[in-house]
């Protein structure tokens, strides 16, 4: 029987760091795909994912509701992304390749889609990532996020509409400022 997020968090806090492993296994793919959408490069996304998980472990005592581990982890991943971009800009001023180039050599599978998902407001992004990248059923997503099943399908419906609108715009010329987030 697999342990719930809450049990894993409590055990980790209770001096069993190995109890954190199921959480890494459960959320690695959704977080990685999200970071790939944000950063545009799979290797870079893996580094950032590693950083996000380690930081979440070290900051576990700050987590008020152990059952809300996943949304909280997302917040940490967001902060890691921002720091990574800032660091990248600083490096660029020294002699690193311009990061437009980094984005162009994006190694992810469907970067337009991943980027569109990464741009969704958080509640919509979460359901898409868990459903398609965490390979969870709607019922499992509802349980994981502690929301009713009907809310999951409503959020999915809205998320689909936003993704389709966003993907329809994807071939329009991009503003350079949009790349430099």
């Amino acid at each position, binding site marked *: 029987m697999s342990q719930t997020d809450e049990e894993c968090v409590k055990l980790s806090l209770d*001096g069993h760091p190995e109890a954190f492993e199921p959480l890494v296994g459960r959320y690695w*793919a959704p977080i990685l795909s999200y970071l*790939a959408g944000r950063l545009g490069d799979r290797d870079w996304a893996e580094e950032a994912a*590693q950083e996000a998980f380690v930081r979440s472990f070290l900051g576990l005592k700050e987590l008020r509701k152990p059952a809300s581990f996943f949304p909280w982890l997302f917040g940490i991943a967001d902060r890691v992304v921002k720091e990574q971009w800032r660091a990248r800009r600083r490096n660029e001023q020294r002699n690193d390749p311009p990061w437009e180039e980094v984005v162009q050599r994006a190694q992810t599978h469907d970067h337009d*889609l991943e980027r569109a998902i990464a741009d969704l407001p958080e509640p919509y992004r979460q359901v898409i990532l868990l*459903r398609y990248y965490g390979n969870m059923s709607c019922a499992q997503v509802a349980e994981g996020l502690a929301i009713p099943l009907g809310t999951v399908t409503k959020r999915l419906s809205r998320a689909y509409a936003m993704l*389709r609108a966003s993907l329809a715009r994807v071939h329009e010329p991009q503003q350079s400022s949009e790349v430099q987030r």
Partner: protein
Amino acid sequence: MKCSEFQELLVAQAEGLLDERQAADLSEHLRSCPACRAEAEGLERLRTRLVRDGRAFADARPDSRVMERILHESTPNLRRTNMIRRKVTRWSLAAAAAAALIALVVLFGIGRPGSVAYALEQTVEAYRGMRSIHLKVEPAPNGLEEAWAEFGDDGSLLRLRMDFPQTEDGSKDVVWEKGKAQVWFKDKKCVTVVREPNMLAMITKQFPDPKLAVEGIYEAKASGNAFVEVEEPAAEGVIRLTVTKLDSTATREVWLVDAQTKLLRELQTQKLEGTEYKTVQRLIVLDYNKPIEASVFRLDVPAGITVVDQTTQDIGLVQGELSDNDVAVKVVRSFLEAVIAGDYATAGRLYEGMPAAKLQEGLTDMKFLRIVSIGEPMPSPEHGRRALQVPCEVEIEAGGVKSVRTFPHVFVRQVYNQPGRWTIFGGI
């Protein structure tokens, strides 16, 4: 209903969450509304793209450096707390009773032969002579509530019955003998007969077999993963054995062993909540070695129940070199072609071995004319790791009227215990 409301239903339909009535209403509306049809197609294209990209990440395994760093960077305080807690546990347990200490010496293999203290070996020995057992589990894990088993002279499992009053599939009873399991899905009014050569291994995943559990303690102790304490007697005629696991599960087992027979009376599973262990499950042995009536191992199935026997026919199609998606589409196509041709025997074999007459009976109110489309398979994790949902559209004739009907809930998976063969399952 307005178009916007139907469009809301499209998502639930794609997830297999609509009831038959809603699905029929939606299908009817889609036939007459080009705008909603376009919406449905757009949604399907997006879902296909999401499924594809999701698969590209499906193989992403967590970087092993994550846990290495976590274990390395765990704060010294955390490690110290952990060690102290374990140490205290060991000390207090050891001091609790002198008998425990004596038993531990015996258990750890440095005791003198002939010691009077209880040792696990005695229980193992007592189980060697076991011929039958009747037990119940509270609360029932996965719905299993009561079980009866008979064993042969060599300890092998001869016959078994398990009752599951509540499962995802509703109430079900299982009997097993000679490599075949019969499963009676009471709510679905159906009995399925499947091959199950290694029932003993399977049931130990469902509930702890006392016999194997004794051996499990040895393994855990030998590998340093468990701490064993014995209280003798803990109560009138009862020896209490506590096995605390020193791993991340924070669980322990409390064995209440009959002091005279050395057989297990009750096995409690306890879980650490805060600083206390609380009982989360009890396995209670009602009888040992009492003759069990033969009728217990027979399903008393009333007339009119469909029997699907998967042991006497080849179910589904062989996957061969095909991908999961390709074989799923092939199974659905072959099934639909067989129904269109009126070959219900073939169609039944592709549908978990459903009897031809039963299948035909279910399809009396409509005639399948032509396959219109078979969609891209999508993972359906709630039905098993590799289960797939394959939506399709078929032109049908019902009441003299031809129409195109969408079947969004067609599911395909591997045949139970026949790897490499794939079948349609569930309702359509």
